[in-house]
């Protein structure tokens, strides 16, 4: 059975600690822009924690919402790419082929979630940060667009491991970096094709909503709304 990877985000559990953001940057060899370039909008964050404030002081409520690629089934980023750099995989992921990307940035414009990022420069890491580079993730050149992959390197490694041990994948065995690092387990990852998986059960929750659902992008990330 093919997998269909999905995620749920429990907004009640999210504390906005940004551990997921840090873990993602480390896992995926994300380019460090530096403070000056970051201020000019050149930093890359495959996952970000959006903050929204409600009400007037002192009656203020803050909402945190981690936003990563929603891995849409009807992804607006895919048909617009003139070189097939952004395309749909068999397991439903929106993949980006860096070698094919010529940098039109059309996909990033078409994405309503703004989760596609352009490399404004070649990646450089000051010592000792260069020692942490993950060998399983390719480093991106200047001029290409990149995005959240649901840590496809971990998915592939997990599948390989299960295959070598001649068994089925266990639910929760594969965890993207953000899910693994979330201290409150707000993020849950798994196979939506497996009705017993935690992510399948949570996706069907009455609290479940999709981000910008009315655009018809059919995201595979479900947000569990705040109850309080």
């Amino acid at each position, binding site marked *: 059975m093919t997998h269909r990877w999905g995620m749920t985000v429990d907004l009640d559990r999210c504390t906005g600690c940004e551990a997921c953001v840090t873990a993602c940057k480390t896992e995926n060899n994300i380019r460090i822009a530096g403070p000056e370039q970051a201020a000019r909008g050149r930093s890359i964050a495959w996952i970000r924690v959006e903050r929204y404030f409600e009400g007037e002081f002192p009656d203020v409520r803050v909402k945190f919402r981690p936003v990563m690629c929603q891995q849409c089934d009807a992804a607006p980023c895919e048909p617009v790419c*003139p070189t097939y750099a952004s395309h749909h995989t068999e397991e439903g992921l929106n993949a980006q082929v860096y070698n094919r990307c010529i940098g039109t940035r059309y996909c990033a414009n078409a994405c309503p979630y703004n989760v596609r990022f352009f490399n404004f420069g070649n990646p450089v890491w000051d010592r000792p940060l260069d020692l942490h580079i993950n060998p399983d993730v390719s480093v991106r050149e200047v001029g290409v667009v990149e995005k959240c992959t649901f840590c496809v390197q971990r998915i592939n490694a997990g599948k390989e491991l299960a295959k070598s041990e001649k068994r089925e994948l266990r639910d929760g065995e594969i965890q993207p970096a953000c899910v693994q690092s979330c201290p409150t387990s707000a993020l849950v990852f798994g196979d939506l094709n497996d009705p017993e998986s935690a992510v399948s059960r949570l996706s069907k929750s009455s609290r479940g909503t999709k981000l910008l659902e009315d655009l018809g992008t059919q995201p595979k990330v479900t947000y569990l709304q705040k109850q309080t």
Partner: protein
Amino acid sequence: MDLKTEQKINADLLRPLRQTSIGFYALVGFLGTIVLAGAGAWFYQMWNGLAVAGIKFPIYWAFYITNFVFWIGISHAGTLISAILRLVNATWRRPVTRCAEVITVFSLMIGAMFPIIHLGRPWLAWYLIPIPNERGLWPNLRSPLAWDFFAISTYLTGSMLFLLLPMIPDFALMRDQMTGWRRRVYSALALGWQGTTKQWHRLEAAMQVMAIAIVPVAISVHTIVSFDFSMSPVPMWHSTVFGPYFVAGAIFSGIAALIVAMAILRKALHLEEYLHPVHFQNLGKLLLLMSLLWGYFTFVERLTTWYGNEPAEMAVFWETQTGSYAPLFWTMVFCNFLLPFPILAIKKLRTITGCVIASSTIVVGMWLERFLIVVPSLATKHLPYTWSSYRPQPVEIMITIATFAGMVLLYTLFSKAVPIISIWELKVGGHGRALPMTAEEDEKQGALWRVRP
């Protein structure tokens, strides 16, 4: 028409080719320097990455795409206008057509450069060309950018043919008039033109075919350019009105550019006897029509968005109407409608000066229109957390200025190599007679002229 008039036409229109003033060299040097500086800016950008430009997350398209849409729009001056004027047999068109067709070819070349300039990896732009290769690369034909590639290359080919065909008899004339190396160049370009009846018939037939074929191509090109925007679910981009809106705007800015170019040529090359006030008045009337059409489309686009009251769209709407882009928006309305409308509508004001003033503001206004389509939508997309603002950087401004200089430079060099007014068409049209001539008279005159030994 007597021999004397014909000789005078030859002398007047070939004068710029024969005599070169110091001012010409100074102008070419000046414009060439700006173009080189622009090329330098582009190499600087390629060397350092797009970090030196003003684009940023999430405003990934800005000045370059604005320029792209603007220049492709300007290109509708020519071919479309001159094709329509040819098809309806407007006799006053004769001194105007070549000026217009040249604008088309050059502004298309410039416009087509921008999608490459704006690429993150411009050296891989050839991935868009469908050539079989062992890596299995193939353009994604679902992408409007791939459509752009085919539309623009078709239009460029077509408009070049449309420009070159009626130039053949003039090349032959220059071959007969010039000496030395020029004679050799022009005789190669004249393709063995002898002016036989058969050749005239073939030329007429070919031009008729091209004039009919180029109109749908021109309209589809700017529709496809508008598809770059309207095919993505971005607020205020995703609109069905964009196709006709872009085409109307393109013709609008094209006519404006044509009027400015004609006025400059008239003064610089002393063509007062050929480009009459009536030409400016007629083009001014067309411009007036397009101004009204543009105003209508803008109104319709805004009104439907306002009534639709969709939150994401309204964010962009208010940002342009009263927000940070409002000064640009209302300048655009002033430049494209409020100022040109009275100038062009009142007969007394529709003079050459009046038309040039109106056209100049329209060129500015249409550039702003393209900018206001591209940037505010990207800056104010669905998730407010990512809202941002754009500020152009020197490299983008330099490249933009360089393309304007490049356009003038190409035009200057062209008018040095080819008479900017079609000589044979003037003669066919019986230049010097009282205007206007009816279409039947025009046809008879042309037939008479062509069968002369």
